[in-house]
C-alpha cells in the first residue's frame, strides 16, 4: 500500500512469518517502520481515510488514538518477528560494542561534532567498537574515514529501499547477525537500533553528543521528552532487565500476532 511498508525489508520479514516464500503481497494498510514518540508513522505521512495503521506497541496505539487515528492495530515490530523466527544460536561468542551514531534520513543532514563523539566512545567502550553508519554517512568518505581512523570497524547495514526500488529483503537479517556478534549496543540517541539491539541480547547504552538534524523540529516533545520519559535507557551503563522490559514493550514483542491473524489484517489471502 505504502512504499514505506517495504523499508528495511519489513514486509519481507512479515511475509516470511506468514508463510510466503516469494515477494510479499501488498499490505492493506500502513506499517510503522521506525520507533517514534508520535502516532508511529512519519510526520509527513499522508493518510487515506479508512485505511488501517499497523503499529508496534500498545503505547503507540493509545497515542495514535488520542491523535484522532482510528483502525490502529498493534502488530509488533517486524524485528520482533525476526528474532522470534531466528533464535540466537547457542555458544556464539559476543565481543565489543556496535555503535550507531545518530543519522539523518534521506535528504537530511546531521550537524554535530564527530570527533568529540569518537572521543566519548573511546572513553567509554573497553572492547572493540564497530560503528554502523547510515548509508548516507557511509558514502560520505570524510565521515567514514574519521571513524576508521579512530580504529573502529565501520560498517553499513545497507540501503533501506524506497518507492518500491532497491528493496532489500535481507536488511534486518544482516542487522541481527551483526548485532549478535556484539556484547553491547550504543548510540547517541535512543532509536530503533538500540531497541533492536536490546531484543537481540545486547547490553544497551545511550550517551554522547546527541547531535541534531539541520532545522530539526522537536515534535511531540522531542529530544527532551525522550530523555525524560525513557530516562532508564540513557547512560553508558543501563540495567539490562529494565532495558529488556522496555524494549519488549516498545517493540510489541509480547504482542506478536499469529500468522493467520496477521494475514487476515493485511488482507493477505493467497498464502
Amino acid at each position, binding site marked *: 500500500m505504502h512504499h514505506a511498508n517495504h523499508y528495511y525489508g519489513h514486509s519481507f520479514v512479515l511475509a516470511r512469518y506468514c508463510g510466503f516464500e516469494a515477494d510479499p503481497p501488498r499490505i492493506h494498510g500502513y506499517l510503522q517502520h521506525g520507533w517514534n514518540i*508520535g502516532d508511529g508513522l512519519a510526520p509527513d505521512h499522508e493518510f487515506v481515510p479508512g485505511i488501517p495503521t499497523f503499529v508496534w506497541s500498545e*503505547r503507540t*496505539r*493509545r*497515542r495514535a*488514538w*488520542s*491523535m*484522532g487515528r482510528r483502525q490502529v492495530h498493534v502488530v509488533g515490530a517486524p524485528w520482533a518477528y525476526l528474532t522470534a523466527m531466528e533464535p540466537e544460536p547457542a555458544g556464539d561468542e559476543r565481543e565489543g560494542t556496535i555503535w550507531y551514531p545518530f543519522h539523518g534520513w534521506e535528504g537530511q543532514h546531521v550537524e554535530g561534532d564527530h570527533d568529540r563523539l569518537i572521543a566519548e566512545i573511546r572513553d567509554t567502550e573497553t572492547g572493540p567498537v564497530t560503528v554502523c553508519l547510515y548509508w548516507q554517512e557511509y558514502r560520505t568518505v570524510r565521515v567514514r574515514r574519521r571513524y576508521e581512523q579512530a580504529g573502529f570497524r565501520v560498517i553499513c547495514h545497507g540501503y533501506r529501499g524506497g518507492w518500491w526500488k532497491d528493496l532489500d529483503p535481507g536488511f534486518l537479517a544482516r542487522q541481527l547477525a551483526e548485532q549478535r556478534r556484539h556484547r553491547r549496543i550504543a548510540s547517541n540517541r535512543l532509536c530503533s537500533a538500540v531497541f533492536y539491539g536490546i531484543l537481540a541480547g545486547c547490553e544497551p547504552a545511550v550517551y554522547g553528543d546527541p547531535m541534531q538534524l539541520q532545522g530539526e523540529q522537536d*515534535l*511531540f*516533545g522531542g529530544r527532551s*521528552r525522550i530523555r*525524560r*520519559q525513557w530516562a532508564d535507557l540513557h547512560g553508558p551503563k543501563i540495567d539490562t532487565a529494565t532495558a529488556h522490559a522496555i524494549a519488549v514493550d516498545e517493540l510489541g514483542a509480547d504482542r506478536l500476532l499469529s500468522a493467520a491473524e496477521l494475514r487476515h489484517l493485511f488482507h493477505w489471502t493467497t498464502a
Partner: protein
Amino acid sequence: MTPLLLGGEMPHWSDHAPARGALLRELAATAHGHVLVVGPHEPELVEAIPARQVTVLVRGVPDADALAARWADRAGVQVCCGSLEKLAAVPAYDTVVALDGLDRTGSTETADLPWAAGVAQLLAVLRPGGRLLLSLANPAGLHRLYAGAVAPGDAEWSGYPAADPTRPAGLEPLRAHLRSAGLDVLRDWSAYPSPQSPAVLVNEDALTEPDLHGYLTSALRRAGLPDGPLLADPRPLAADLLRQRLAAALAPAWIVAAAYPGHHPSPLPDGLLTDGHLVRTSAGWTLSTASGPIPAGACLHDALLAAARTGDQPEFRTLLTTWQSGPHATVPADALLLTPDGDLHPIPSPSPSSSRPAGEGAAMGEMSALRCFAVALQNEGLAHLWPADGAAELLAAMSGHPRTPPPATRITPSTLRELTASHDRLAAQLAEARSQLTWYEQRTATLQSDLARAYKIITVLKATTGGRAATAVLGGVRRGKRLATAALRRLR
C-alpha cells in the same frame, strides 16, 4: 511561569469540557491551605480557591502552557503537567481537589492507574487533617442510561473505566472506601445533570426526605439536560426517581468531601443548587436564599400532569386557575411548589435565567409559562389528551383567563424519545388530515351527483306542457316586472 513536567505528559493533548460551573466553584472555594487541583478544571474554578498556594496538575502540555500563561503573574500558583502516578507521594497538600474525578488523570504514555491506586496517590499527598474533594462519575447514571449513540472520542484510548474492579460501585461503596483509608466522610452529594457541570448537588438524606420531594423535583427539572446527544429527556423522571429513592443511585456522579481526622471548621451544606445552599436546621430544610423552611408539597408542574393523567378535570382546572389567576402566573409551573393546603410558593432563585440551561433559557423566555406547560403536555406522554394545536389557548380558557399566549417558538426536539413522539404526533395528524380529506372528497362527489341529477330533472320538467306554460308565465312576470320598473323610473 513554565509548567513543571512530571512525566507522562502528552505534548499534543488538550482536555475538553473540564469540571466547571458555579456549584463546583463554590465547592472549590472551601479549599484551604496548600491546595492541589488534579485533572481538568475550568480556570475560574481554580481562581475561586481562596488559598495562597495552589498547584494544578493536568496531563496535556497545551493545557498546562495555557494555564501557566494565564497565571504568569499570580504568585503561589504552580502548574504541573503529567500523569497522576508521576506525582511525588509526599504529603504536601492541605486540600486535594479532584472534581473531575480520576478518569482524566492518566495519559497515553503511562499504564492506566486503577481507580483505587489513583485515590491512594491523592491520599498520599494529603497532609494529616487534610481534606479531599473527589468526584466519581456513575457509569449507570441517568446521563449514560439516556445517552445517544456517539463514536468513542479521542480521549477514549484506554479501556472502559467502569470495568475497573477497584472502582466503587455506588455512593456507599465510595464512602466505605474512603473510610477504610482512614478518612472521615464530611459530606457527599449526588450530582445532576452531568458529572462535569452539575446544577444540583444534594446529599442522600435530602434526596430521600419526602417533604423535599416537591422542591427537589422542581430542582431536578430545572437543572437542565446532560451533555451530549440523548435518547430521551430525563427530566420527566425526576419525581419518580425521588419517590422510588433512586435519585442517588442513578445520579450522573457523586462528589465526596472527606478528610483525615482533625478540626474541620467550615461546615458544608447538605445541598448546593442554583437556588442557594440547602441546609437542614432545627426548623426544617432551608434555602440560604429564603427565610423559613422550604414548604413541603408537590412541584406544580407534576401536580398538573398527575391531574391530567388521571382525567381529574376539576382538580386540573382548579390548579390551573389558582396558578393563572394568582401573582405567579408568569412563573413556570416547574418553579412553583403546591402546598397541601393548595397554596403556591415560588422557589427563590437568585437569578431566574441562570436556573435555566443556556440556549433553552432563551427559547423558554420567549414563551409564556403556560405555553411551556402546553409543550410539556405534548412531550410528557399526554399528547393524546390534548389538541395538537391551540393547547395553550385551551389551557388559558380552562384557567378562566382566556387570552392568546405568545406564539410558541418552534423547538425541534433533540432527544430520540421526544423526536419519536413528535414524529408519531405529526404522522397521526397527517393520517387524520388525509382521512378528513377523503371524507370531504366523498361528500363533494355526492353533492355534485345530487346537483347533476337535480339539473336533469329541471330540464325534463321544462320540456313538459305544464313546464312550458310555467316558463311562459314566469317569462311574462319577469317582463312585466321590467316594464313596471322602467315606468316607475320615468315617473320619477
